């Protein structure tokens, strides 16, 4: 069992009204923003299940957009996320899908885009108490919580890539807490997700990039 801190009990400090429908939604979107890594000009959300049914009364839409704008779960600007997105030049759209059945009732899809045509698709689940899981990146099913420093490597599924990644981490003295490989199918697009309980320095990315089978890198810093 993970250590339960007093601040898991008396906490989180959060914008209400609901840890799962508000705080968890912020956390999903904030992780998506960090994964995208640059300026976001357009975002499209799709809400499923309980998110689709009760988003208005829980402010789930503002929470998701707030996370995209870089607000954390205790940021009072979340309430004004629509106005602030307009000011910051972020276009946003919400689709409400009550038909599709997802694995978890509180599920949101986020499609991020910038002016250069760079796109990233992320699916997240809000699993209760403000905690969340990212369960899909583009077409690949993944699973991580965003509670650790997380390195996500998009790669071609070929031998030697994982060894290269672990060697780079080891040379930088990074201790791996969890590491998993996810792929669409054999030999196609794959993601390696590395979670560490110490900060992963950004300059490590340039070393990992050297491998020709590494296509893209994302870093969720704590």
């Amino acid at each position, binding site marked *: *069992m993970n*250590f*339960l*801190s*007093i*601040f*898991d*009990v*008396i*906490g*989180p*400090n*959060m*914008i*209400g*009204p*609901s*840890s799962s429908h*508000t*705080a968890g939604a912020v956390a999903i979107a904030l992780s998506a923003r960090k994964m995208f890594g640059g300026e976001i000009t357009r975002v499209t959300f799709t809400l499923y299940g*309980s998110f689709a*049914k*009760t988003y*208005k*009364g*829980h*402010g789930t839409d*503002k929470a998701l957009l707030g996370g995209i704008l870089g607000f954390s779960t*205790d940021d*009072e600007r*979340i*309430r004004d996320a629509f106005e602030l997105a307009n000011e910051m030049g972020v276009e946003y759209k919400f689709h409400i899908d009550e038909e599709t059945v997802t694995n978890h009732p509180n599920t949101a899809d986020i499609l991020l885009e910038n002016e250069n045509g760079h796109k990233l698709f992320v699916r997240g689940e809000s699993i*209760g*108490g*403000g905690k969340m899981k990212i369960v899909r990146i583009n077409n690949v099913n993944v699973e991580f919580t965003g509670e650790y420093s997380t390195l996500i490597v998009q790669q071609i599924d070929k031998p030697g890539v994982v060894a290269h990644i672990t060697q780079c981490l080891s040379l930088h003295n990074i201790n791996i807490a969890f590491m998993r490989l996810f792929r669409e199918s054999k030999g196609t697009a794959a993601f390696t997700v590395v979670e560490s309980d110490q900060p992963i320095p950004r300059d490590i990315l340039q070393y990992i990039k050297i491998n020709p089978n590494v296509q893209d890198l994302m870093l969720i810093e704590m």
Partner: protein
Amino acid sequence: MDFYNGQVLLDLCNSENMPISAVMKEREITEGTLTSEEVDAKLVTVLNIMKDSSHKPIEKPGKSIGGLIGGEAKKVNDFGKTSVSVAGDMLSKAMSYSMAVLEVNASMGLIVAAPTAGSSGVVPGVLMALKEEKGLSDEILYKGLLNAGAVGYLLMRNASVSGAEAGCQAEVGAASAMAASAVVEIMGGTPEQCLAAASLSISNLLGLVCDPIAGLVESPCQSRNAVGVANAITSAELALAGVIHPIPFDEMAEAMYRVGKSLPFELRETAMGGCAGTPTGCALGCNICGK
């Protein structure tokens, strides 16, 4: 220093001659990732948010997103100052402060989940009222928060604090137990009396269902927080007077969990039963969700 149930906690308090708050802080430092200074700094933040959220809507009431609540805290606070108030200063203040936190929460304001957003009014409501009535310093309140955190941790670990899993008894019931135990330590009670107060609190709300109208954290959540406050104050008073609950805290936590597990699905945060399932509750739900 760690503990996994109430008995081990009491044994530690007695062998180390420490109050529950001190054992909880020691546990956080030795078992967790924070330093003593970091724990203190986080407690300051928590208390500041609690102070703000329990007072703001009394000065400036606003409407909730769902529109079911807004302005109740001010009403109760104003009424408490009149000669026809029946609650007395401590209870009246604690009720209005707890209801204020729920108003802040329901209007997308900043609160501390304690242990959840739906029950976030009870601990600050009781502590803020006690601070005013007894002239307490913030330093004493930090100890109260640590004590409440110990009880909440045990319930989270060994039972549940989720309405979806175990009903409102697990949310407002747990929050009452946390607040009651904190009050007992603050007022000089023993660790045994703290856990007796927590046991009393849980048993008083045993079986309480989670039935939010329209699925929103508004009604009956807000008035349940006022009841949670009354329950905490009652339980603390009983324990301080030397009334012992026959059922030890650990057994009571397990009983609460079992009762919660045996609650039907409709009465666990699904907005299908209880208040939410009444004709009026359903109609309000349809109006809010626009169907």
